[in-house]
């Protein structure tokens, strides 16, 4: 911590001016670089921050999108539902499990957890994800360790329930 040497007052003024200029120039260069990258983003197609396209369309704010049905989950075998019953996947996520607060609730499935799995429509398709079940979620017999994109014909097993994904 030894000071180098005291500066004369004229030197102090010059040094401070130089430091101030350097500080401001560097600050604006920093900002300029980030603005540049943000400007690049503006040229990309814009997406909406609004969650509810239906209501916005009704209010005339955005053009009506085509009704989006992203696929169906058809029951193959289940202790709760009849075979062939189907659940439609639209633009919001669908949770499945034994508890009643799921979008698809299956109280009779002893092997399903309260909140078992989530189907989530995204831009590139429908993804399935295990949300902390005890017995696991299986796609075509393979246990999910991470979320996975579904392809038509995939069979998802939740507890003792088998669901087939159809476009």
């Amino acid at each position, binding site marked *: 911590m030894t*000071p180098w040497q005291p500066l004369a007052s004229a030197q102090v003024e010059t040094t401070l001016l130089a*430091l*101030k200029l*350097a500080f401001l120039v560097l600050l604006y260069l920093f900002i300029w670089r980030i603005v*540049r990258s943000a400007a690049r983003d503006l040229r990309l197609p814009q997406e909406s921050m609004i969650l509810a396209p239906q209501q916005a369309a009704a209010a005339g704010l955005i053009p009506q999108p085509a009704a989006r049905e992203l696929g169906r989950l058809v029951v193959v075998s289940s202790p709760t539902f009849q075979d062939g019953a189907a659940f439609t996947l639209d633009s919001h996520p669908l949770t499945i499990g034994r508890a009643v607060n799921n979008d698809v609730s299956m109280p009779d499935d002893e092997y399903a957890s309260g909140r078992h799995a989530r189907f989530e429509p995204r831009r590139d398709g429908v993804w399935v994800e295990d949300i902390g079940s005890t017995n696991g979620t299986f796609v075509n017999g393979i246990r999910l360790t991470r979320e996975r994109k579904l392809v038509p014909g995939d069979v998802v097993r939740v507890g003792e329930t088998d669901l087939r994904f159809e476009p």
Partner: protein
Amino acid sequence: MGARALNLSYRNRELFYLAVVGVLTGLGFASVYIARQSEVSWGSLGYALFFFALYLIAHLVTRLTVPNADPYLLPMAGLLTAVGVTEIYRLGNADAFKQGLWIVIGVGLYALALWGLRRDYRVLEQYKYLFGIGAIALLFLPRVPGIGTTVNGARLWVHVGSFRFQPGEFSKIFLIVFLAAYLREKREALAQARLKDVGPLLVIWGGCMLVLVSSNDLGSGLLYFGIFLSMLYVATARLSFVIGGIALFLAGGFVAYEKIAHVHERVTIWLHPWTSTKVYCPSTGGLALRQDCESYQLVKSIYSIGNGGFGGTGLGKGTFTTTDGHQLIPYVNSDFIYSALAQELGLIGAAALLLVFMLFVARGMKIALQADDGFSKLLAAGLTFGFALQTFIIVGGVLRIIPLTGITLPFVSYGGSSVVANFLLLAGLLLVSNRANTHQ
């Protein structure tokens, strides 16, 4: 400056900008040091190196946990805290040391939050009511006898031993998590405005507003109201909610102006800070010019900004004390740090700071746009709106665009809870950003 030309990955770009921030911190500290002692010493560089090392740790944790997150947010937060701590150091060494400790705690919690939620932060969605009730409980904490403390007429502090913090800062984040989870689940029902679905929302939000208004914390009240309205709009796209909300706010504001003396005083100070004749002064009970009494702080802050001019006095050379050593602006390092910075950095530097705030908000909005699922979108949008509104409320107040209400300038102001809460906010944005970028 060839970060992109070299085609760096996100994290290397972040490291590059952090190095730039490190140099900026060094320049700032050196300037303050030289102005004060007329000599160059290693001490000034020590501070800069310490902060650079701290941000290096934050960067490494970010690299390990959220490798695909936005690369600009952490350097911008670093820049804002560095500028803040430089100015706080310039105004008083002891506070700068404490602020430094709080930044260390903030970075620590930031790292913990990233590490704990690195797999899937959406587990938070399951605990939404816990967050909602937690938000009210935290706001209510300062009222509990024995641990609550009143500072400047507002009972916002909690002290445990010698450790003091403002739970309201964390309550804001809790409320945003609650709103994001709740609105994601109920947005269709809410768009039809059925009372059954609106109920829990009104209870938790109304509870927050009640506690805030009754504890005279108007700045936070405004902030919570704005966060609520903007998130409701993002969730439902119903412009009528926003118009109704603003109408409600104006009506409520008018009633408060008429009925609550504290609010009336704030508006009067805002509209007429100077008087040429002596008026009643509530603090002494006698007569005084308003600029010497109620609006003393605001007027001195405006003089401070004016003294800065275009180019500023330079870091370390501004005037903040009278010749006999009294501080000119009370609470200059927390609520009024913007006017201190505007004096020393001038219009050009203060504008640069506001640009950094705006860019931070722009990155946050972009993350909300990119996010795939409703919870993430609402969370990112809510955190960003909260950050933007808080900046607007305090800078607008200091510049006399809106009535002044005491609230901290994010990352810059002196105040431990604020710094720590803002690091958690940053962690939230980076988690959402990482997820959105990973799935593209």
